[in-house]
């Protein structure tokens, strides 16, 4: 079994003030990440209870996803996510209730009205684009959106798309990168590199140690950041999006991270990851690191943190209860929305 050692332990790369972030923003992000993790925990519980048939985790990826979300002009820039991005869509404004409605396949599921498996996030209002499960097929849609901005002459918009490192071996991903590179389109390609494609370790799914290395072949810059460091991700995402909007072209942003749970509730990660490896990464949990930062910077004290956690649990409880009570889709809805009028 392949060893994927964590990067050397360290605190966060930046002070938030230096990045122009307010104390309140940091605390809101911290709370949001705790919400995301709590929702994730409860999804696994719902799965064990037989209520949620499918769960796919974002645990461990929260700093990457919140850091990127901060840099997005919400509702203006397009976001083209993948199944791993639950924390991202929460950061962009979806609610825990939305998430549970989706996971339980309810009529009001904003992603699909109960049609898609969990993890297929969507909101036209938030410009979060509906995806399939086909790995690597969606970055092309971000490229097409960016082409649309060229035609409509909306020079202040960008598209940001997310995928795992495994997806970067798909042909469709290559074509997306190629077109974005040729035309220097305003797309930020975010690779959430958690070092595994389900069970396949990075060495057998991509031919290079840093996915960012691939950028050179597409005529765009590649950046590597510590994906478990909220501020480092934000700084890089902000720079890449600003450059894209300013006509400076696309960026491949690689966020090194780790998923703290199995791939999905159908997976048993003990077959392919050593417990010690998982534990080492747990010690670098992005939420813990942000908490340490907040405490150390005296943005909050331990009691305040405890209050947040209590409030979050209560909030999530309400969301689950509401989602469980919500109606199932009407049977006739099966035949709706095949074609427009």
């Amino acid at each position, binding site marked *: 079994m392949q060893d994927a050692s964590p990067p050397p332990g360290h605190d966060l790369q930046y002070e938030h003030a230096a990045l122009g972030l307010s104390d309140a923003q940091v605390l809101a992000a911290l709370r949001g990440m705790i919400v995301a993790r709590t929702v994730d925990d409860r999804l696994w519980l719902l799965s064990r209870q037989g209520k949620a048939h499918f769960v796919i985790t974002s645990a461990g990826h929260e700093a990457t996803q919140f850091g990127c979300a901060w840099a997005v002009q919400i509702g203006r820039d*397009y976001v083209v996510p993948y199944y791993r991005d639950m924390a991202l869509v929460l950061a962009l404004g979806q609610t825990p209730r939305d998430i549970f409605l989706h996971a339980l396949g309810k009529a009001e599921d904003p992603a699909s*009205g109960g049609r898609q498996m969990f993890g297929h996030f969507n909101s036209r209002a938030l410009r979060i684009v*509906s995806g399939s499960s086909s790995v690597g*097929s969606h970055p*092309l*849609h971000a490229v097409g959106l960016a082409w649309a901005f060229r035609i409509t002459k909306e020079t202040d918009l960008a598209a940001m798309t997310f995928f795992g490192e495994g997806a970067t071996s798909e*042909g*469709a991903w290559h074509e997306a990168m190629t*077109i974005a590179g040729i035309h220097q389109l305003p797309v930020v390609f975010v690779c959430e590199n958690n070092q595994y494609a389900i069970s396949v370790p990075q060495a057998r799914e991509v031919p290079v140690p840093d996915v960012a290395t691939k950028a050179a072949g597409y005529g765009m810059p590649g950046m590597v950041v510590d994906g478990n460091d909220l501020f480092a991700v934000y700084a890089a995402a902000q720079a890449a999006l600003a450059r894209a909007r300013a006509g400076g072209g696309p960026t491949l942003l690689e966020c090194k991270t780790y998923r703290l749970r199995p791939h999905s509730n159908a997976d048993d990660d003990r077959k392919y990851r050593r417990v010690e490896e998982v534990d080492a990464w747990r010690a670098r949990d992005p939420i813990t690191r942000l908490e340490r930062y907040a405490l150390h910077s005296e943005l909050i004290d331990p009691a305040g943190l405890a209050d947040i956690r209590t409030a979050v649990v209560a909030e999530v409880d309400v969301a689950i209860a509401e989602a469980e009570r919500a109606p199932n889709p009407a049977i006739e809805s099966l035949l709706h929305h095949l*074609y427009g009028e």
Partner: protein
Amino acid sequence: MPQLNLIEAVRSAMADAMAEDARVFVLGEDVGLKGGVFLATDGLLARFGPDRVVDMPIAEAGIVGMAIGASLHGLRPVAEIQFADYIHPAIDQILNEAARLRYRSNGDWHCPIVVRAPFGAGVHGALYHSQSTEALFTSTPGLKVVVPSTPYDAKGLLIAAIRDPDPVIVFEHKQLYRGVRGDVPEGTYTVPLGQAAVRRAGAQISLFTYGLMAHYSLEAAKVVADEGIDVEVIDLRTLYPLDQATILGSVRKTGKALIVHEDKLTGGVGGEISALIAEHAFEALDAPVRRLASPDVHAVAFSDVLEAHFMLNPQKIATAVRELAAY
């Protein structure tokens, strides 16, 4: 009214649609300076500029995927796949993405793209420049599949496809590009998707066909008319979803059905049409539903002698009609 051939009609459809609606743009390999390998986009670059006439890298998934993305922001992309034989790398984007976007998002998004591709044999194109690939696209809800056979329809159907709120695949037969001329109005007009055209009314046999075979079938119908066999020739025009009303109405009238397509027999769209007739017009049938199609080989071979043997022609169609009439 101007007389145009089919490729001119296609070009005129795109030019008029682009002039009328700034959201329409075309993309594909060699569509710019070269104007497309069949000249479908000739002159459009000079007129509309490189943002709306986009020379693409050789990346069919990329062409369709980019069209999909642009459509989500409200644009109306018309993608050209250089030959239907090269549509395969884009199948995932067409079937799993474009066709499903509306349904999977419960109507939140929709995907108004058009994908045009030249298809068909008889131009020495051999195994990879002659394929009929329509059957790969006629089992996926959310899509529409269109095959024009006249210049008038080519323009009207293409404009209808561009205005349609959902993805439409348009297969254009290469032999018809320069092989057929007809009246084509200036300016935009539409021919409705989903409606077959009765090209020749007849009482004894319903002949269902499309593309180049619509012309061959009309020729055959003329020949057998002199022998007293009265064939109704129906040009399906839209292969998915099929115009069931016209198909079944015709068979209920004539009692006999012959389906003619250039695609190979097994797995071609003829099977679906035959099954529909069997299910819904069985009692009207006076004879087995027949299919006439190309042999079950991969595509036409290059050699002239093999190509001639492979292709359907009016004579073969007339023979099939006579056999069915005699049943």
